[in-house]
């Protein structure tokens, strides 16, 4: 397996005054092109920190991130992030939020008309073309997250980073969005790294699930291959033995061996 995105011996220590906290220790992970990876762990285990490191928003203490043969240590549109709380700019319309990203990434390579078409295309991809002139405050939480995904996709990133993208949504909306993401992954073949704390979501969407031990000094505890064929159908999987086994493995890891210990 050739690594497209390589996390190499990543360690992260936060220093506050004289106190230092080691959050991540020796995280190494190779991700192939087109792979869908989920990172799951209890809250506070540093999984968001790990995603921010890959995004370049947080710097590493040791180790590094190599994407497509080059080390990355600053944020950039080749690693588009879908933030947990959508992070749309409220003073721009849905269209303008996506267009801002499109203009920034493709200003030198595509004409104005092409960028307009590309913006609309990506909004259609997440079924948000109908709301292009609305402001974020006028659409629902699920719709905002769709626009956030469209904005990320529109950058044509090498890796799509999803930071608990469905965490703030209700169960039904979440299921719809998961289906949308699966469709997009199937048709575009993106490389996706997703943070989640939802076991079903991880098993349904991922090719591999990376399970993290509890912090401080969190490590990769186990990596589980989910060898379910794609396209996956939510309903058909309910009684699928492979699905259930994978689900059980993750649950056991999270609740038996690395039970969440309340820190405070």
């Amino acid at each position, binding site marked *: 397996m050739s690594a497209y995105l390589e996390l190499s011996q990543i360690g992260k220590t936060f220093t506050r005054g004289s106190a230092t906290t080691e959050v991540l220790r020796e995280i190494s992970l190779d991700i192939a092109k087109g792979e869908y990876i989920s990172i799951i762990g209890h809250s506070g285990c540093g999984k968001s920190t790990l995603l921010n490191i890959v995004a370049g928003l947080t710097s590493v203490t040791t180790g590094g991130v190599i994407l497509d043969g080059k080390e990355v240590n600053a944020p*950039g549109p080749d690693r588009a992030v879908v*933030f947990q709380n959508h992070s749309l*700019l409220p003073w721009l319309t849905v269209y303008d939020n996506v267009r801002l990203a499109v203009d920034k990434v493709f200003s030198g390579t595509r004409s104005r008309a092409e960028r307009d078409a590309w913006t609309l295309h990506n909004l259609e991809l997440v079924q948000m073309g109908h709301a292009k002139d609305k402001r974020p405050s006028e659409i629902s939480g699920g719709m905002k997250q769709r626009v956030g995904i469209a904005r990320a996709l529109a950058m044509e990133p090498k890796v799509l980073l999803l930071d608990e993208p469905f965490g703030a949504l209700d169960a039904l909306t979440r299921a719809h969005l998961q289906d949308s993401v699966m469709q997009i992954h199937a048709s575009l073949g993106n490389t996706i790294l997703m943070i989640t704390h939802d076991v079903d979501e991880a098993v349904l969407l991922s090719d591999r699930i990376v399970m993290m031990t509890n912090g401080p000094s969190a490590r990769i505890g186990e990596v589980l291959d989910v060898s379910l064929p794609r396209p996956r159908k939510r309903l058909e999987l309910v009684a699928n033995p492979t699905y259930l086994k994978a689900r059980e493995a993750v649950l056991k890891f999270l609740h038996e061996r690395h039970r969440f210990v309340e820190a405070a």
Partner: protein
Amino acid sequence: MSVTALKDPPREARRSGSADVVRLKPAAARPSRWPGYAKSVAATVIPPLVVVLLLGLLWEILCSGAGATLPPPSRIWADSKDLILDPFFVAGPQDIGLGLRVLVSLQRVAVGFGLAAVVGVLMGAVIGQSVWAMRGLDPLFQMLRTVPPLAWLPLALAAFRDSNPSAIFVIFITAIWPIIINTAVGIRNIPQDYRNVALVLRLNPIEFFWKIMLPSAAPYIFTGLRIGIGLSWLAIVAAEMLTGGVGIGFFIWDAWNSSRLPDIIVALAYIGVVGFVLDRLVAGVGSIATRGTQAS
């Protein structure tokens, strides 16, 4: 420094008197002689009118006695009718209507406040972005902003050797502090999410300023501008009293020197109305410009 309390007077006050409890039928069933908006206009206009009339009456009674030091409304009307009725007369280079005088003062305010707005927002942006600039400059600003506007005037006169630029400088230095401080606070309060978006998109500093900073900090900036315009108007009247010229401030001083008390009272009314209009103007521009900037 919140100004929200100044907004909209309680428009619902009129409801308290009506007998809502017994009226079960919807009000629409009754043919209404008044269109809805006329009613609401009347509801906002009539209470202040009544108050003004009552106060005027009280004033008339208090100042009509033999030993009264201040003129009653009736004498103001008799003595200064020309100032009230024709704000734009020109009877000579120093004898012009109050409306024209206000315009002269407003011109100074426009220049001074305009400069303060541009410089204040830019400085506020720099200070808000840099923790060290904030730490270094904030105590200085907090100290300087408490200096009364007129205390700057002698220095300004010494530096510019002319009254008009000095008056403009006083406006500038009065209005700039709340603009700087509010802008800096607004910039510091830009959510990390928006900064992350800018980082991922690799916006350059100029794009960041226009696309993220200004819209995100706009509510704070307009709070600063609104405080600033109020202070400017306070300062210009005081500054003109000392520097002379044809502004509304000097008019008051001149009227005092020639014992024309009714004229002073008319001028005060002008100043009050113009100050109110200025505040509403900035607030109005602000509410248009900041539409949709609040995250949901």
